[in-house]
């Protein structure tokens, strides 16, 4: 094991001396006097799929009470393509009831997060997930994350193939250390030396994300990923994938060198080439990514540092041949299509709107229990599967026509279809978790966006826009977890109750937005948006999305490239 250069970040050092992600996690789990793990270990647990957090609302109060912060853990599963069986759903439902305060959260990368898991429950929780045939390996950490794919399986054969690739890529890019089995699954420790074939002892410089989209749907915002794979279907057959590199949403306020970036398409590869292409791109980032400054360590910065041509050359060298030229494709939108859809294999799929992906038993709607009933019924009938979408929604998929009416009636009785009556605006909205668990949040998101949408709905209705879909996103900070920079309207938290407002992203995830107003509260948000929506209602072209309209109307300058994101911001006229 070679030494870590001095200038490398602390996390690099922690990774390197962790004995392949073991650290002192086992000792930390056994220490009953604190709900926390050792600080260094909290970097390592991310690779195992979980984050140490604390309830931020209780911090001050507990400090006074001479109690440590309310430490708790967020677990994130690996669920490539967002697909699970009804039985697996039931197992996760039981696990969240036992260890996760009876809630689970569909994430923007079509998997589940469990919140508020206490240290003492981590191991039982991990085992419950394991017994369901699932895992959390690489849920977080400096490795490849959950591989996402277009969720809607109506083009069934293509979808099945793409989903299969999502699985394979995820498996291919897994970290291999036995630490996971030793710590969580009571596997015996072994003396056999370990090495990570792909990642090496230091893993990647930063998180890494791969997505696969099946045009014209871009529900997974494929271009927001480090590797964007766009399925090319010709004559009804999957030919391969266009390959994009260097997408990412993370930005910072006031730091121009941190910007969101959409993946640049660098060519096309066949299915046979796919794993090698993905592996070599990961290799480029592993070898050339910045390990000193984590703020500058994502692949997008590696690319902009060296230039796209360099990446192409480097990749060609590693592959022994350059990629073929990219093929044409077209994205229509990045939303979900609610209600029943028939697949080309005759099976049916019911997409349900789940506000901000939060599954729980709410006072006025026992959503979690309703879904349990549906999953139990599907399991009893031996039909279907459940899919999560990158818009935090879910699909009861692959329902044989003979069962369609029964499932429809059940879902209706349980109130699961009520969500479909929401405004088009709400159904195209998405917020990140933010407070109270996210340690980086500066303002509310998941708990506030529903209110704000309610107020915008009134304006929309006034203007006769209630059936118009405008992609609206909110995050509690500029990190971009709900991919706000791809929102036609977006809010990012600056301080409690205060948001930056962004406008002008494309309706299909192919153009970033730009800052419109800074640090304003609800009243000003509504006051700022109302006149724009009025103009839109009056002046829009037929079918013109709001994001395109604000650019055409000169309200905002188009962001054509990540590096321009912070530029050409128009000053508000006061």
């Amino acid at each position, binding site marked *: 094991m070679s030494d870590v250069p001095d200038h490398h970040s602390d996390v690099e050092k922690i990774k390197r001396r962790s004995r392949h992600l073991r650290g002192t996690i086992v000792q930390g789990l056994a220490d*009953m006097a604190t*709900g926390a793990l050792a600080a260094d270990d909290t970097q390592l647990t991310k690779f195992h799929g979980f984050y140490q957090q604390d309830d931020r609302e209780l911090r001050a109060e507990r400090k*006074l009470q*001479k109690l*440590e912060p309310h430490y708790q853990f967020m677990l994130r599963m690996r669920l490539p393509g967002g697909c699970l069986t009804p039985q697996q759903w039931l197992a996760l439902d039981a696990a969240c009831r036992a260890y996760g305060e009876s809630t689970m959260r569909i994430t923007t990368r079509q998997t589940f997060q469990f919140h508020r898991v206490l240290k003492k429950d981590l191991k039982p929780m991990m085992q419950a997930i394991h017994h369901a045939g699932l895992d959390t390996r690489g849920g977080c950490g400096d490795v490849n994350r959950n591989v996402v794919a277009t969720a809607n399986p109506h083009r069934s054969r293509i979808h099945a193939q793409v989903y299969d690739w999502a699985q394979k890529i995820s498996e291919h890019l897994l970290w291999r250390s036995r630490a996971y089995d030793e710590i969580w699954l009571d596997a015996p420790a072994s003396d056999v030396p370990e090495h990570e074939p792909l990642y090496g002892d230091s893993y990647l410089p930063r998180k890494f994300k791969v997505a696969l989209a099946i045009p014209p749907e871009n529900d997974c915002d494929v271009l927001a990923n480090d590797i964007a794979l766009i399925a090319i279907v010709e004559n009804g057959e999957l030919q391969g994938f266009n390959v994009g590199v260097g997408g990412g949403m993370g930005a910072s306020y006031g730091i121009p060198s941190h910007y969101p970036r959409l993946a640049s398409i660098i060519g096309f590869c066949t299915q046979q080439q796919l794993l090698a292409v993905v592996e070599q791109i990961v290799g480029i980032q592993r070898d050339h990514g910045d390990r000193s400054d984590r703020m500058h360590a994502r692949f997008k910065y590696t690319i902009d540092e060296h230039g796209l041509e360099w990446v192409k050359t480097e990749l060609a060298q590693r592959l022994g041949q350059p990629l073929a030229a990219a093929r044409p494709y077209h994205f229509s939108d990045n939303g979900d299509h609610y209600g029943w859809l028939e697949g080309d294999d005759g099976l049916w799929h019911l997409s349900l709107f789940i506000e901000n992906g939060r599954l729980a038993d709410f006072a006025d709607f026992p959503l979690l229990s309703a879904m349990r009933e549906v999953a139990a019924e599907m399991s009893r009938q031996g039909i279907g599967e459940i899919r999560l979408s990158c818009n935090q929604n879910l699909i009861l998929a692959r329902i044989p026509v003979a069962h369609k009416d029964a499932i429809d009636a059940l879902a209706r009785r349980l109130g699961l279809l009520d969500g479909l009556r929401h405004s088009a605006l709400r159904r195209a909205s998405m917020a990140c978790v933010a407070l109270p668990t996210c340690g980086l949040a500066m303002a509310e998101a998941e708990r506030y966006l529903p209110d704000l949408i309610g107020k915008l709905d009134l304006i929309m209705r006034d203007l006769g826009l209630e059936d118009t879909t405008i992609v609206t996103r909110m995050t509690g900070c500029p990190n971009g977890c709900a991919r706000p920079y791809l929102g036609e309207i977006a809010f990012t938290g600056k301080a409690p109750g205060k948001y930056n407002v962004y406008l002008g992203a494309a309706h299909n995830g192919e153009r970033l937005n730009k800052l419109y107003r800074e640090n304003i509260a609800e009243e000003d948000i509504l006051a700022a948006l109302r006149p724009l929506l009025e103009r839109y209602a009056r002046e829009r072209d037929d079918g013109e999305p709001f994001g395109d309209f604000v650019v055409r109307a000169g309200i905002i300058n188009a962001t054509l490239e990540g590096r321009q994101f912070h530029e050409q911001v128009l000053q508000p006229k006061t």
Partner: protein
Amino acid sequence: MKNTARIITQASPLNSDQAQQLDKLTRTLTPLQSMWVSGYLAGQQSFQAEEKTAPSLQLAASSPSTLTILFGSQTGNAEAVAQQVLAAARDHGIQATLLDMAAYKPRDLKKEQALLLVVSTQGEGDPPDSAQELHAFLHGNKAPQLDGLRYSVLALGDSSYEYFCKTGKDFDQRLSELGAERVHERVDCDLDYDDAAEQWIGAAIKLFEQSPETADGKQLQSGSTAAPAAVGPTRKNPYQARLLTNIVLNGRGSSKEVHHIELDTEDSGLVWEPGDSLGVVPSNPLAVVDELIETLALDPNETVSVTDTELSLREALTHHYEITTLTRPVVEKYAALAESKRLHELLSEAQRTAFSGYVQDRQLLDLIEDHPLKGLDGSRLIALLRKLPPRLYSIASSHQANPDEVHLTVAAVRYKSHGRQRQGVASIFLAEGGGDKGTVPVYVDRNKHFRLPADDVPIIMIGPGTGVAPFRAFMEEREVLGASGANWLFFGAQHFLSDFYYQTDWLRWRASGLLTRLDVAFSRDQAEKIYVQDRLREQARELYAWLQEGAQIYVCGDAQHMAPDVHAALTDIIADQGGLAPEAATAYLNQLQKDQRYHRDVY
């Protein structure tokens, strides 16, 4: 001074020359001077004795031909009274020796001729730790015949307990059974023991003045041990401490309400050592006072006399009398007034259990409602009641670390019974901010059985719940002193998240290395209940190793379940790890207790 010469020559070990010189001197002395001289000699004697017996409790060597005063005390009340007995003996020119029962050789009993015994009752009618050995000896088959021993017992207790003054009663009865002569009836003191104790002392001491030995010419000289001078505020004259901080330590979702209380002690003259308790002199809540007055249709402004002071009834009930807790004497007096057959029955010996059950969760008001009594006036009411006793709280901070504040860890007593919401007097007095002016009357109650050992001695602290309080004082003290001894804390409570008192302090001390080990048991965080005694057992090997290295054990907190369970666990651990038979393990633990290496402060 008439017969001194005769006494000196006849009965003293002095040679005739010495006897004459002494006789000459004593003839010239005024009473005051003679007292001084006797004190001087006794003081010298005890000083030498103390030097010989190193840092032990022993105050003076006992010598068979003098009055022996023995005390058995847990929190120091009996000891303080015994000090008064000694002083009174001295005043009466009686040579007396004051001894803690723990330091007394039981076999010496048969050599005694005059014995005054002051003992409290602990647990559920159990002797204080320091009295256990003597108590057991007297009740065992090795107990000697004690004909010729003249004695009297002062029992301290609390009439709200089922077995009121039981230990005193035990000693009294047993001494008599063994042939000793009870020269004065035992007096059973309630928590407001001052007056009763004073009377007993006065009467008993007189009896020994006229003892046969004296009559047949043997002058008893008064022994003396310098009683620790009472410093600062006292029970009778407490300090009005300003309440600075009052925080509920329990996080959300807890079923407990434990307050961390900080009181201002700047310029108070209060001095304490880790292990001491703070006596809190509470007042009754006005609502309870008024409800009582109303129920009995009394005049709140009626003038009543409380220890020679005229007060309004309302004031008297607020500050001077216990008007909630029911005790046997109160019920007895009430039954007499109410002429209630039902009550008399309840008070009968046959109904002991029923009586305990009745008073356990009822208060004075319930008694009055259940057995109405007409025509009571204020004076007759207060004649029924006992004085409002102060409550003790283990001090949770070190005077060395911060002399300007004293910290307490107070569990608020609130419960519902028989359709009424009830509250504990003192805990709620504290929890709700003290008296009108935000002050709390307090004094220090010493607990010399619960002291930190020398700086380099390792300690094992077992303190679940509020029992952890003194250990915070221990750690603060050891931190400022830079004490090198290792420290191991066992803490327990219901829930980790909400009930881990002073968690951040313990974690800080663990991180700094002061707290060597920290083991916790949270009983309700998993399906099966886990308590500190279970953690002790898990750590048996390590714990025994600590003991072998001279570690001292401290147990503080619940007396009913925790302390006996911990005791049993320790016995088992010693048996297992030391390969000892159960009796030998018990003896080992008893020896630790005798050697002042196993300390308990339980309530």
